[in-house]
């Protein structure tokens, strides 16, 4: 016996655009890889905990293997020592993938304008959304997630993103 959608549709066929159906799926099943290094990672813990509950946006399946994730959340300061690691993790993620720079440090180096801190991760990997704050509140992380979802809506499976990105490590 058919249940759910197919029960009411019966033998009916639905026509849609490939992009629309794929994007719909991608949008609500983002699997984040949390690259947590510093204070921002603690705020991500709060975002995942009960009060803010990231699973309301379908993004609670936190993967710690880059090969299973499609959303890279960079939470915290990235030093030059860490840069090659971050780059390799980004490269290990299968396409399509999105990157969020959480907080002032990941976005621009923040208060650490010195010899060891990368001045924004967009010098290493392409970034889709930046979150301001030091550290940002959990609401801001959720807001970034919604923005990524909106962005996904307008994308196409036929188009490669960030193909010609060149960072300081390339």
């Amino acid at each position: 016996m058919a249940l759910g959608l197919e029960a009411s549709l019966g033998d009916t066929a639905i026509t849609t655009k490939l992009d629309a159906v794929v994007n719909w799926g991608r949008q609500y099943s983002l699997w984040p890889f949390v690259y947590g290094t510093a204070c921002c990672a603690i705020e991500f813990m709060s975002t995942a905990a009960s009060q803010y509950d990231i699973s309301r946006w379908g993004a609670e399946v936190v993967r710690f293997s880059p090969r299973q994730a499609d959303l890279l959340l960079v939470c915290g300061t990235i030093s030059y020592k860490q840069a090659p690691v971050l780059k390799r993790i980004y490269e290990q993620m299968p396409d399509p993938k999105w990157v969020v720079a959480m907080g002032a440090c990941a976005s621009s180096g923040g208060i650490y304008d010195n010899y060891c801190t990368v001045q924004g991760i967009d010098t290493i990997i392409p970034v889709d959304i930046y979150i301001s704050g030091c550290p940002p509140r959990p609401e801001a992380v959720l807001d970034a997630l919604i923005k990524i979802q909106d962005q996904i809506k307008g994308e196409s499976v036929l188009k490669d993103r960030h193909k010609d990105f060149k960072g300081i490590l390339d």
Partner: protein
Amino acid sequence: MNATALENLQAAFPDATCKVVLDSVVIEVHPENLEETLSRLKNEQDFNCGLLVDVTAIDYLDYPQQQETRFHVVYTIRNWEANLLIQVRTWVVDPEKGIPTATHLWESANWGEREVYDQYGIHFQGHPDLRRILNHWQFEGHPLRKDYPIKKRQVCFDTDSMEDEIRARLLKNGVDEATMKDINTEVMFLNIGPSHPATHGAIRILAALDGETILANVNEVGYLHRGFEKTAEQRTYNQIVPLTDRLNYCSSMMNNIAYVKAVESWLGIEITERAKFMRVVLSEFYRVLDHMVCLAAALVDMGGLTNYWYLYNEKEAAYDFISRLTGARLTSSFTRVGGMYRDFYEGWQDDLETHIRGLEKGMGDALKLVDSNRIVHDRTQGVCVMSAESALSYGMTGPTLRASGVPYDLRKDAPYYNYDSFDFNVPVGSNGDIYDRFMIRFYEMFESIKIIRQALKHIPEGPINVANSQLSLPPKEQVYGNIEGLANHFKLIFEGIKVPRGEWYDSYEAANGELGFHFVSDGSGTPYKLKVRPPCFYTMGAFAEMVEENMIADAVINLSCINIIGGELDR
């Protein structure tokens, strides 16, 4: 106490110059006598300094008072039982040639001296493993030297393989080539991190395994090195407070308090009674929160996700109180030199009481799940044992040291802020295993709440800042109302608080152990040098010692129960 200590030390070391600075005795010795002095201070019964707290160097290149040599090295050591704090200083004629190492006396000298080498380029003769620790291996130059420009960035293209280090460690542990080739031993190298869920931040663990047993372990830290000390040299004393938030970000207010306490002790100011009580209440509140995050994460690593919600949800609720008070959830920046940023808000006592009850409930629920849980006991008891002697030698402090049976707690042994008048116990472990390290944190949380309740009963009314126009900002009515107020405000903001020339060390019992600050002031509004003594840096130095001969899965829970916080570890 220090007068007799000074006499004793001067009598014992007639060739050295001894003087008292705050709570410590500073001994200046000739480099040739350094080794002998340190070894006597450690081994002689009169001194018995079992704890090497920190090693640092000072570069006098730009210092207004001309020094004979450019570099000095300072060893801060402590006999915790007698509350005897000694700083042994020596000068370095040639940094390339360096000075003799102290690694044969204290294990903690290993990482401490590596940091000095990395940051200042001073060699230590006879050091077993002198290489960079905080900066990457492709880095050239030494960033804390005064002639290194703060914005001279150096890109790292590749991570360090650490193959030589792990092989050397294997050899040290008695696994030579012949054993490795033996048909029954198959050594596997396993790399965990720097980005791995078990590392709670960016730390790298490289282990050589025989089956699941760790034969050798080496660690790489410094992934979150963000130049705190160099940045601090460019800020006024009050501007550094926000930087300290980001040391141990699980208990940011404790760093704020420790930092201003260190500045105030040199300025010789006694803060108001109310400010003292505020600092005690907030310190203990943050201690509870810090332990909660540690335990929540550690229990997740062990597979107990329920505990995480019980503990973390209460902590999350407590953020409401903190953001009401400070305006921020995580980074409080709530202290100022000479007092606090603001007083408590109206009705804070009820809020605090509600949260304390919530925290107690969370702790109680989590403890019930753990206390008589056979799986937890089997998993943690007798695992990764650290003896009291080696814990001290590695410079461990705080809950991890107390778990090994050493009841050293600055709140009891060198009390500040009226801690001696509060009634509380210092829980001590008996075996020094993971179980003890877990339970210590649970019991310390209950003790902290005891202190908060006592402080709430006795907190006096009154001002929160010292009445000193050289230190505290004038009230806003005066800034906008008269020229003196405006000028006062302007000078304090732009030039900062003027701190008299000198050098000193001051410490505080933070959630992870002894958090110390070593200052050098040239008399201006910014510190000439500011070195942090981070508790978890030295605890991490003992990690290999703890996990070797245990299982790889034990190493994971061991890392979480010693509560390594990247911001503080790598600064």
